[in-house]
């Protein structure tokens, strides 16, 4: 019982960290995607504006 008790306590802690870390990873991935999008759009607009001049 005691060993199982400890193992499940470890699972409990691990699951808490995995869920929170998983969410942080999705936030970081979204941050990267947004930054890439904004960079591409700015470059595209600059290109369009300079070709108009």
């Amino acid at each position, binding site marked *: 019982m005691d060993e199982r008790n*400890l193992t*499940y306590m470890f699972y*409990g802690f691990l699951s*808490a960290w995995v869920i*929170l870390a998983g*969410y942080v990873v999705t936030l970081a991935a979204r941050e990267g995607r*947004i930054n890439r999008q904004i960079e591409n759009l700015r470059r595209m*607009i600059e290109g*369009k504006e300079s070709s108009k001049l």
Partner: protein
Amino acid sequence: MGTKILYVLGALAAVLLVRNLYVILLGLPDEKDQGAIYRIIFFHLPAFFTAALCYLTALISSVVYLVRKSQRADDLALSATEVGLAFAAVNLVTGMIWARIIWGIWWTWDARLTWALITWLIYAGYLMLRRAIDDPSERAKNAAVLCIFAFASVLITWKSIDWWRTQHPGAVLSIRGAEGGLDPAMESMIYFNWLALLLLCIVLVAVRMRQERVQREIDALRRHAHAL
């Protein structure tokens, strides 16, 4: 919120979490009936409190949005809900793991567990609703109304252990009037870990809010690029 402040809050949360983990694992004794598994409560309860506070923030922000049509309020409601869902998931999963040892089952349809799951599903529905509506003002308005009604589910979850006979344990914190509940050292550790999770939550909400702001900039740039 400034990037430097976010780094400081994040670092504080990390230091506090490591310190708490040390005390939880090595400083506090096993509980006499449950043994080591009771330590799950140090994440289970603070995660619920954090999620409930996120939902309350989303409720207030939704009311502010409907009254003032403030875009920042809508961003805060969305961000708080999304982060709250992550903490609510921690609450549900850690509870199930504790139940497997103490009750011998992963899940039972008792009032507290069922309402906690329903609450999670309602707020997940809130996020899905936002994805389903294209028009930004319609999306914000509908989501705000849902968010206000959804909070009733949080209150029912909170009070379910008082209103119904549940397999879930009753109140253990002295602030809820629990008699013969947790040892003061254990109870204070719950608050310390709540503080750490709360700091982490603030950082995550702030980052998510910034992402929403940048996303609007992207939408505006897209329209601009399209018009050129």
